[in-house]
């Protein structure tokens, strides 16, 4: 009957209307400063890992009563995949999203899907942050800013004082840093540990490889996305160094994050870890038996590097770009970076924090009372820059790593493995 027909037409047309509404709706209210208006604004904020941003968001809500912030935290890979899918589909992205530095280049190809933070006032806070960290948040031309800096991961030398002592090496952080001041000295110390204690120096071949790799000015790709793996490339140098350390017998087989590795950290089955600042938090929580046995010293400048850290960006889908920006500017301000550092160990990227007393005097019980923060702060300021990584950084990294593992585990010929890995990398790039 007629009513039935009407219903069908109504049903179909409302479906269509809904889907159309979902496609459009990108109009923004960039009219006035949201702080002054009474308009209720809800901001979706996606984070990953343990950041403690939930508490800071609550603090912000108290100060700005018209703003509600919904923080959704997920696991690192899930977070980035979900964000990627949402951006690709053009709907479903949050107002604010955290981006991990190694995943960042995967998103930088889609500049049109992010707000340029320079347009929202980011120029005013530029000087607060470490230069190399800030630059990595820009596009290659330097006129577009994707995200504001959150934490960084300056690398330092974590070493077992008991094994160092047994090997006849100094145990005081200052003395260790003075003695191990070059890759050659690093190698020598490794041999000494191996000889006296019978234990490997570095935990795994990946860490031996990362020693030079993380510190290099160039990574696997040139900014034009061509392979940069020639015989005199920096990656090859890092590869050769890892092979060399392995030949000397000072590289262990404890793959990071494996249960065996966790055991080895706990029981002191290797002597040194080239770890970033965030490893400290992991050790405190997961290696109870090693309390008081690890110390931290600065690495030789050749190995000064950053590993990890994040940015906070504003996807273009948001309707409240200015409000979102104002919040993140507040969230990563030096004062709040100090709070994030104290509560969750996020190492600050704002250099003024390094001079704050609360930061410097933070003695770590786990490290036998050593104040480790200044060591990492020094390391952070030694970093020259972050190389261009490209969206296929990890797949290529894994290919090279496979080559190294074959060398270590099966005694394969390093040159042949290298060539095969480069070939596979080229194949990945062609996709």
């Amino acid at each position, binding site marked *: 009957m007629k009513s039935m027909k009407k219903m*069908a037409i109504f049903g179909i047309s409302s479906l269509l209307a809904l889907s159309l509404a979902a496609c459009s709706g990108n109009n923004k209210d960039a009219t006035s400063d949201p702080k002054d208006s009474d308009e209720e604004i809800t901001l979706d904020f996606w984070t990953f890992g343990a950041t403690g941003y939930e508490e800071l968001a609550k603090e912000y809500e108290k100060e700005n009563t018209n703003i509600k912030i919904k923080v959704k935290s997920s696991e690192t890979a899930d977070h980035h995949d979900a964000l990627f899918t949402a951006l690709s589909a053009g709907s479903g992205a949050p107002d604010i999203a955290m981006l991990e530095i190694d995943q960042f280049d995967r998103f930088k*190809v889609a500049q049109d899907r992010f707000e340029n933070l320079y347009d929202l006032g980011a120029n005013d806070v530029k000087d607060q942050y470490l230069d190399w960290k800030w630059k990595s948040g820009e596009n290659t031309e330097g006129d577009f800013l994707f995200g504001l800096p959150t934490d960084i991961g300056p690398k330092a030398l974590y070493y077992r004082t008991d094994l160092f002592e047994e090997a006849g090496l100094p145990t005081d952080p200052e003395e260790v840093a003075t003695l191990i001041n070059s890759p050659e000295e690093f190698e020598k110390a490794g041999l000494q540990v191996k000889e006296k204690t019978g234990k490997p120096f570095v935990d795994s071949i990946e860490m031996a490889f990362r020693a030079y790799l993380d510190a290099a000015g160039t990574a696997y790709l040139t900014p034009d996305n061509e392979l940069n793996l020639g015989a005199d490339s920096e990656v090859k140098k890092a590869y050769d160094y890892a092979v060399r350390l392995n030949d000397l017998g000072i590289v262990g087989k404890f793959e990071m994050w494996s249960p065996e590795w966790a055991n080895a950290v706990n029981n002191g089955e290797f002597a040194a870890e080239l770890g970033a600042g965030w490893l400290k938090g992991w050790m405190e929580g997961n290696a109870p038996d090693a309390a008081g046995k690890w110390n931290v010293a600065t690495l030789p400048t050749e190995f000064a590097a950053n590993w990890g850290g994040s940015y906070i960006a504003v996807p273009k889908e948001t309707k409240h770009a200015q409000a979102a920006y104002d919040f993140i500017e507040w969230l990563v301000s030096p004062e709040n970076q100090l709070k994030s550092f104290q509560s969750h160990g996020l190492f600050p990227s704002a250099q003024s924090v390094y001079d704050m007393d609360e930061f410097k005097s933070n003695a770590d019980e786990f490290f036998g009372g050593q104040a480790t923060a200044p060591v990492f702060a020094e390391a952070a300021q030694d970093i020259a820059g972050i190389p261009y990584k490209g969206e296929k950084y990890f797949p290529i990294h894994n290919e090279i*790593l496979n080559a190294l593992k074959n060398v270590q585990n099966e005694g394969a010929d390093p040159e042949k493995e290298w060539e095969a890995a480069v070939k596979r990398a080229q*194949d990945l790039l062609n996709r």
Partner: protein
Amino acid sequence: MNSISKKATIFKRKKYRSEEKKDMISGYLYIAPFFIIFTLIGLYPALFSIFLAFQKWNGLSPMTFNGLANFQTVLTDPLFWKSVYNTIIMGILGTAPQLVVGLVLAYLLNMAFLKFKSFFRVTIFMPYLTSMVAVALIFSVLFSNHESSLANFVLTNFFGLDPIAWKASEWGTKIAISIMVFWRWVGYNTIIYLAGIQSIPNDLYEAATVDGANKFQQLFYITIPMLKPFIILTVFTSTVGAMQLFSEPTVFLGRDAFTRDEAMTIVMYLYRDAFRLQSFGTASATAIILLVIITVFAVFNLKLTQGFGRKKRGGADE
């Protein structure tokens, strides 16, 4: 006839027609939810995937048409062929023993003298009800690379063999994953066979006993031929399942899942292209190639099972 009655009949017919229309519309409305959902999450992605197979796309930048290049990339990639090989080997190792053992178990479960039947039935079916991810995690601990893992402990202490790197060796990985697949699915197939065996009329066995056939002859000439439709069903579902093997190896290998090639299946290869390499074009091309492979296997299966049933029946007639 006067005009009034004429009008009445026309009106009646009209009404009848609209009544039919009404039924038709309500019928369509009843089935609409399925078709709407299917179109959105089944048909549309499938068609889009076919379209994508001819494009180069990283998910964010604009697409560019590149003809058959994606297929060429995939088909000339040694890793793709390695993944096809892995899938087939793990398919055979994981499913073939399953079907044989399932049949034997079903036969034993159906034996008249067996006590605690329902206990055994539930026990055998239980693994199927477990969470796949939990199973894979537990197996990844049992079969760890470490010399002291349970699997290596058994190997070295009970059999005097060398420990195996279960996650890093060509055959170790495949065997570990196949055992996991076997463990989880054998109960499922057993229950299907058991239902099949119970549907075979008893008089056939009685007649055979009268004719002097022993238990083995009964198994080969009555039970198996009568189970033919059930065997076809399980072979079919197992084959398709084996071709789509993904979660088990992915969870089992964890961090190494997409970097090592020992257990990379076709679907993992596809996933890696799409979500690790941001190469949705080659991933879609792989999906289409997988579709072709599954079709070929399905036809092959059908022919094989048909042939085997006929032969047996012919044998029984003699």
